[in-house]
């Protein structure tokens, strides 16, 4: 994909999971107050093996297995963050964030404001998202929009190994509670990742592919879907630009609006539920900021408004695919 505008320039390739692990290891070496806690994070290194090897290097005082008590250990992390530590909480499946909501929404998000800025909560919650793993309704949701709704939280959705490493390091160094969503279907995705220290600032979108006729604004794994759809569109003579906001909040509205003004047609893609979700917010940003430059209504594509079903043919139609995006884009361009 020579036209892809990847920032990463490196001969070294890592998987998405390896990039996450490298970010954690580098930050833990740099700062002794960084520690990890969650279910099966130590010897097991999580069911996805994302954390393999960290226990061996950093010991069980900094890589802590917890009971299955998501509210309990997330609450502990809030208090530890307020008093000098930098916890990285691991919530194994994004569906389990529902169990942490009081700790994140009523505690972590509000401590700084309620205290008039006197306490802060520099913590990261890492969790997963994404369907099509045949895991059914309670292990497949993408619930990032819940956190985007809450002032005081930052929300990060990396789409490449390069971004995953740089964004996670920035999230750990941030002074606020940051929720970091990893699409579990991308852990094996490979991409260039430079060795050593770099960060990707929160609040800066990235143009993953330059195009002229239509903008595909996509998050997380939908960036990969958008890039595949763009390759198909190219064959049909349609030049698609793929823009990745990378962080839902803070949100780089300007880059999104500029791309929309340039191409005049926009599809917003996100794996969360379409209704009242991220696609609605981003479409509103475009409609407000680029209204007079649009040649078509902004199109939204997200998860269907159903619990994610188990049966493969049913599950596959609940989320956007390169084919559905390709067809929607062609229709929007009148071809």
């Amino acid at each position: 994909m020579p036209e892809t505008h990847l920032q990463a320039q490196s001969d070294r390739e890592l998987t998405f999971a390896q990039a996450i692990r490298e970010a954690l290891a580098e930050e833990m070496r740099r700062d002794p107050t960084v520690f990890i806690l969650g279910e099966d994070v130590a010897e097991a290194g999580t069911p996805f093996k994302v954390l393999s090897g960290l226990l061996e290097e950093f010991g069980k005082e900094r890589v802590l297995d917890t009971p299955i008590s998501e509210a309990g250990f997330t609450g502990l992390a809030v208090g530890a963050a307020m008093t000098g530590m930098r916890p990285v909480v691991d919530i194994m499946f994004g569906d389990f964030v529902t169990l942490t909501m009081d700790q994140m929404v009523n505690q972590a998000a509000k401590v700084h404001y309620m205290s008039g800025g006197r306490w802060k909560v520099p913590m990261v919650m890492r969790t997963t998202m994404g369907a099509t793993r045949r895991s059914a309704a309670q292990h497949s949701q993408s619930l990032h929009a819940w956190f985007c709704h809450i002032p005081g939280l930052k929300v990060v959705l990396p789409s490449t190994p390069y971004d995953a490493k740089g964004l996670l390091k920035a999230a750990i160094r941030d002074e606020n509670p940051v929720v970091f969503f990893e699409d579990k279907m991308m852990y094996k995705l490979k991409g260039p990742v430079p060795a050593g220290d770099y960060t990707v600032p929160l609040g800066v979108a990235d143009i993953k592919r330059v195009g002229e006729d239509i903008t595909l604004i996509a998050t997380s794994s939908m960036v990969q879907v958008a890039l595949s759809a763009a390759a198909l569109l190219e064959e049909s003579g349609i030049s698609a630009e793929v823009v990745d906001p990378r962080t839902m909040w803070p949100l780089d509205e300007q880059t999104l609006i500029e791309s929309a003004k340039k191409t005049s047609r926009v599809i917003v893609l996100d794996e969360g539920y379409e209704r009242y979700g991220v696609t609605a917010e981003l479409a509103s940003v475009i409609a407000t900021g680029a209204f007079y430059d649009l040649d078509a209504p902004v199109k939204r594509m997200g998860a269907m408004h159903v619990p994610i079903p188990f049966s493969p043919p049913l599950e596959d139609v609940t989320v956007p695919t390169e084919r559905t995006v390709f067809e929607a884009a062609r229709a929007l361009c009148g071809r």
Partner: protein
Amino acid sequence: MSTEMTTAAQLSEISEKTDLLLRMYRQMVAIRQFEAQVNELYTRALMPGLAHLYIGEEAVAVGVCEALEQTDYITSTHRGHGHCLAKGASPDRMFAELLGKKAGYCKGKGGSMHIADPATGNLGANAIVCGSAGIATGAAFSARALGNGRVAVCFFGEGALGQGVLYEEMNLAQLFKLPVIYVCENNLYTEYTHYSETTAGDILARATAFGLEAASVDGQDVRAVYGVAQRLVDRGRRGDGPAFMLCNTYRYHGHHVGDINREYYRSKQEEQIWKTERDPIVNLKKWLVEQKVSDAAALDRLQADLEAEMKKAVEFAVAAPYPAVDEVGEDVYA
């Protein structure tokens, strides 16, 4: 694993410390005078929002906080004015916060239910019942990880016994051997419902099930509270792990200031018995005079001085300016 109360030897040792006893007396009276002013402000419609008075429970906050260092941590509740004062907060900035003024501890953004103050180790009052159990446990985690010798105290009412997260935190605290003390203030009423209607089984057994050191104490006797707290704080600081302290106490006023007609959930006679026979301030005063640690005239003067101090603090808060409207968007992110 559990002890019922402060031992006689401990009590006699505490009784020798006249400075401590007078300080605790002063603190309890200060809290009561503070709350009397809150009641006044509220009933005169000068205070927005809600006011949950701590009157009747003063010995718990004072006895526990006297066993702490300034650098130790506390978390508090919606009924938190007593905890904040006992940990060292200034009445003038507290009143300012209660009135939503810029000079308040939280620049007016928190109010009565969210006073927080890093200078006195106050991690914040919390308006979610049991909302701070995680925060206190996490502060104890930091203390252990950073090796700074601090302990954390989590104050909560018996209503919090109904929240599952409390048991998650006690389990974690025991697994990680954290220096945290869970202080349950059983004032008998979970808002408008007697705790016996909401609490099955034995309260202390809930803590001992996780292996926590657990003790119950007469929460109307500040010397006894201090004795138990000191023992549990010391063992936490030594690295012996978390503890649970059940303080049996009573809320003289309603759940909040507007809760006036209470006969449907408790009798006036019951209230009268607690106020006349078990008042922590009256009883300590009587003891101090009997033991000739002080005399009634001096203690009355102290009360008058504190009342005057609180009135001055209220005047400061009433006169203090509100925050500028454009501050509404500040402090959302650090």
